């Protein structure tokens, strides 16, 4: 059952605490905020699967665990399938009546970083969504392989420098566009797909609740600013998320049944991508004269994407 009173952040952030504060994520990491929001927005039983990555290595270091609910990690790529397998067993046991509590409402959630979601776990995610398991997959998108020291993933945007797509005298960093995974997941026909952000916590909590309440496979991409690899002060995480949503680098929207698009947050004052980039060390080189055109290029792409999202929303198809 959903917790309905999402009014007071202080109250909400401490309700129903099934994710312990004791973990080893970097100070300023947005992952724990997003995970806590998910776990605090429902009273239902939760089975959580997690891909290998920052979240996993920081929350289940034997003999400790931060998870006060059922939790499983298998490998880098297969949290979606772990959740799917558990969900299949739930159905089988419910039919046979072998569950400890046959009437309890139970939800299945998988977490992965962008490396494990956009790249190595893409096939497992696609398969689990296509098969229609009743679960929600949440990608903690920090646009790089942060756990292994900041390598490029297919979620890394153009122009960011990473340890495997380096900026230098002959390179402006990553050359390729970010993969549009939200569109790909919507194209699977999943009943609920969204892109959400922790700074818009009420919208995010409602989106999570909607996903958990929706029968069938749901996918949510969340922006998770990474102070370590994006290179900003850990105290500025939510500020960075504000810049991400307000520059429309990360528009906040949902797609229902693969076609009905709703924009969930419209910034009153849209800021430039330049302002967003200037707040992070990973884009520092773009402010050199020879690479400034990349900032303009990204701004054009962002404008085009925002126009596309608005038109799709207006079209109501």
């Amino acid at each position, binding site marked *: 059952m959903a917790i309905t009173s999402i009014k007071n952040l202080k109250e909400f952030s401490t309700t129903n605490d099934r994710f312990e504060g004791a973990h080893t994520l970097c100070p300023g990491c947005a992952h724990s905020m997003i995970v806590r929001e998910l776990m605090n927005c429902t009273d239902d*039983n939760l*089975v959580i*699967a997690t891909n290998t990555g920052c979240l*996993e*290595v920081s929350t*289940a*270091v*034997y*003999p400790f*665990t931060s*998870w*006060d*609910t*059922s*939790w*499983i*990690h*298998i*490998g880098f*790529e*297969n949290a979606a*399938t*772990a*959740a*799917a*397998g*558990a*969900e*299949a*067993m*739930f*159905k*089988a*046991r419910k*039919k*046979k009546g*072998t*569950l*400890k*509590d046959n009437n*309890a409402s*139970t939800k299945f959630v998988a977490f992965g970083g962008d490396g494990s979601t956009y790249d190595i776990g893409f*096939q*497992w995610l*696609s*398969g689990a969504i*296509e*098969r229609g398991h009743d679960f929600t997959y949440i990608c903690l998108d920090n646009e790089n392989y942060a756990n292994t020291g900041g390598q490029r993933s297919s979620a890394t945007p153009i122009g960011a420098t990473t340890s495997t797509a380096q900026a230098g005298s002959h390179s402006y960093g990553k050359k390729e566009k970010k993969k549009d995974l939200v569109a790909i997941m919507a194209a699977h026909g999943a009943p609920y797909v969204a892109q959400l952000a922790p700074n818009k916590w009420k919208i995010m909590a409602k989106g999570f609740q909607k996903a958990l309440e929706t029968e069938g496979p749901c996918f949510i991409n969340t922006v998770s600013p990474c102070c370590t690899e994006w290179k900003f002060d850990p105290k500025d995480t939510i500020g960075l998320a504000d810049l991400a949503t307000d520059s429309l680098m990360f528009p906040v929207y949902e797609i229902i049944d693969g076609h009905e698009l709703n924009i969930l947050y419209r910034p009153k004052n849209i800021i430039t991508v330049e302002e967003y980039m200037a707040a992070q060390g990973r884009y520092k080189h773009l402010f050199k004269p020879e690479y400034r055109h990349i900032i303009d290029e990204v701004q054009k792409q962002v404008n085009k994407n925002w126009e596309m999202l608005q038109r799709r929303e207006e079209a109501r198809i």
Partner: protein
Amino acid sequence: MAEKFDLQEREVWDGNYAASQALRQAQVDVVAAYPITPSTPIVENYGSYVANGYIDGEFVMVESEHAAMSGCVGASAAGGRVATATSSQGFALMTEVLYQASGMRLPIVLTVVNRALASPLNVRGDHSDMYLGRDSGWIQLDAFNAQEAYDMTLCAFKIGENHSVRLPVMVHQDGFITSHTAQNVYPLPDEVAYNFVGDFQPLDDMLDFSRPVTYGAQTEEDWHFEHKARQHKAIIDSRAVIEEVFAEFEKLSGRKYKRVESYMMEDAEVAIVALGTTVETAIVAARELREEGIKAGIVAPRCFRPFPYDAIREALENTKSVAVLDRSSPGGAMGALFNEVSAALYTTANRPLVTNFIYGLGGRDFSVAEAKRILKEQKAHAEAGHITTDIQQFSGLRGPKLGFFQTKRG
């Protein structure tokens, strides 16, 4: 409640069908699977049992074997009975998750229809996939025919799910020769089979929310070693449970199984050690040679893992010369079974001579005549008191003979 399935006292089943009937009788809750020749019919049959109401379970047809085993891990941690099937490349793709399944101590049953590994691509039976799993922390039982594929699959659930074991179990059968050859099989009645396996008893159940569990934690140099040591001890100690389960199964079926099967070994001077369908071929050869006055016998590990170091030694310590047959390309080493049998025999008083044959790769036929030739060669070694050929030879290979290494004992 599952529909009743009509069974005769004697059925004509191939190995795949036999294995799938065992899955039906055990009322497996979840099968997550991906098709691959020659094991495909096992999961197809499970799917058809679900579709026709003979099983109250979930059949999850996933997008790869890696996902198949991943789904099995998630399902098993959720506290029910889980099985799947695979072969060859599918087995190779699953390998990462095989280690994770055993590390999490999940009693999944995997029926492996043995097939060669590419390249070159080959769909026929050899033991490359079986050998690939030998360090994965799974119990590995070997069936030599369709009846045994059925029997071992039932036993596998009971062994793996025993709370003092808590390990996944593979049941191996040879691709095509067993999996696709119809033979007489005597199944147990449904009720007898189910009662033998018993209701699944969950342990550390992810769906018991009164006691949350964390599966697949991180450990580094501080704890990883202790976990792996406990796991190793569990698989070595499973020997007692395996023997108990075999004894209980004998009472119900009249069919007696041991961790190491011995045929005509009471007075044997020469022996073949082999796995799979080759065992039956070798038994015919040994019988014929006995008529010629050669005291030949056959030894076959029923249990490939835990490796029956103790029982192998017992079976072979009074022989003079032993040929160990490996149906897997050793890739620059002696065959794995040869190495393990030799290591066991090294600590016996008489230390029989041991030679190694690589044979039957990619389904190359292994004949009674070749088995006889190999046993006769052992006889020659025994008479000479040392190995008179190369220690490792290829059997049944086209072209010039291929062999490596000579003895220093002669």
